[in-house]
């Protein structure tokens, strides 16, 4: 098992994607199947952007095992009031500034779910949001 830890700053759009890029590099070196790498990169990238765009900041813990990758993304609030709604395609509360940067189509969370094998999203208002997902290396 290998563990990687990263921090995400709120509002730091220029660095969004750097975590998924590092994880991608590691998965390539581990000779993980290309389609699994792609799915993981998409899911992680969208998760990173969500923490940057919608939260006060957070951290990412990546655990790579022989047969799967487990990723936990935790932020320190404000939390998601209605998860079911947030998971709907096209639902977004993104600010005009965020939309200006090309985000805010409301596709992120549905996309993350589509690109992961196990998906778990929990949130508590005023505390924060925890997103956990797993991708298996072999089908």
């Amino acid at each position: 098992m290998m563990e990687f830890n990263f921090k995400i700053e709120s509002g730091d759009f220029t660095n969004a994607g750097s975590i998924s890029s590092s994880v991608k590099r590691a998965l390539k070196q581990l000779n993980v199947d290309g389609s699994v790498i792609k799915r993981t990169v998409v899911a992680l990238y969208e998760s990173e952007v969500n923490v940057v765009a919608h939260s006060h900041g957070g951290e990412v813990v990546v655990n790579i095992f022989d047969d799967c990758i487990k990723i936990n993304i935790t932020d320190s609030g404000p939390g998601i009031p209605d998860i079911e709604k947030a998971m709907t395609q096209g639902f977004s509360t993104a600010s005009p500034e965020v939309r200006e940067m090309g985000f805010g189509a409301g596709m992120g969370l549905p996309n993350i779910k589509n690109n992961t094998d196990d998906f778990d999203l929990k949130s508590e208002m005023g505390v924060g949001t925890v997103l956990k997902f797993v991708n298996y290396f072999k089908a």
Partner: protein
Amino acid sequence: MGTTYYHALTFRDDICIGCSHCMMVCPTEAIRVKDGKAQMMDDHCIDCGACYKVCPVGAIVVEQDDFSCIEKFEHKVALVPALFTGQFPNNITRDEILQSIYDIGFDDVYEIEYSVDFLSEQYLEYFKDEDHEKPFISTFCPAVIRLIQVKFPTLIHNLMRIKAPLDFTAMYAKKSLIDKGLDADSIGVFYISPCAAKFVAIKSPIGEEKSVIDGVLNMNFVFNKSFKAIKSGVSKDRDDFHKALSKNAINWSLTGGETNNFPNVRSLAIDGINNVVEFLELLEDDEIEGVEFLEMRACDEGCAGGILCPGNRFLTVEKLKNRADFCQKKIENTGKTPAKKLRSYDDYLIQNAGVGKINARSIVKLADEVAEAMSKMKRMFEINGALPQVDCGICGAPSCQSFAEDIVRNKADIVQCIFVQKILEQNEKIDSKKSVEVMKSIWGDKKLDKNSLREELKDII
């Protein structure tokens, strides 16, 4: 495993001075210095020619076929890139340049881009097919194909599986001669190449059994022959106007030459191998949205910057653009369709347009199995974390990171790092004799010969 890869670039040990310039610029980190000489890692090299451009002593050579090999064929066809005409001084005309190719021994001459108008239609058909993965990456530049094979295996399905103008023009040239009654075996088709990558693509094609091209000649070599022929006066009686090219065809090999054909498709043209690498990383990171087509070329300014082009790339581009505009006007004035003869072979060419499966062959993976790769990776991180991150190259590898990787691949020894040596010497784990020995194994005996160095230093001290 055990596979050998064909390359057009070779290092001449008798000329190499072991300066490591090539090692530092190689985009796939394919070069190491050992025994005082640059050494190529066969599976890493993509024949982009970055090393060739920086070698200060000309120790890197590009293979080509012997010119006499054209004599094996009764009917000799030369395929010349349009940018060949951009290598000569302004006062020499396109007609004279192409005529000189006949004069040096060929029976037929085509510019490669003769098939471009056909091909750009095929691209559009290819774009329409829902089965093809977006963004489509052009397979025109063979160095880019190989780069993706070795370094970006997740993007392998984005490579367009369609042949290049060279292949179509060659197929047409051969078939049309056969239809005129010539024996297939009597026709030899020769390519005049601006680069090493094209040579490899022909000698060791990807996704194809065998190329239709019978031989490859280097452009700088043919340039000298042609120039000489022009100087001594070419015979000017040939009318090859039916082989005129459209504007888009003439510009095809330059940067933007492909994307310009598709104003309604969101496309980007990226030239220069490091720019290509940077963009492919972003693409792999899923940070690129909505781009449909990517033209990618290893060389700055596209093939005008090919390592075998004798002319300056910026001047070549200027000349070709001028020629393209001039030709376009001429075509408009005469109302003739360029490359009309080839278009009667559309069906034949379409049947043979596809390329087989392109396989990834990762040089990035540390082992085949995840578990084994992971234990190597842990060690690699530990080693790299301890290294000074100076990327000085004294260890014989291009960076601390690649050196750490070499160690876990059992291709290098930690004591090759000059900083490690100093620390081990201080701690009396090795003596200076041992450290000189290690340095000699990397940089050769000559650079560390104590007598000759003392000679050198005498006057200075």
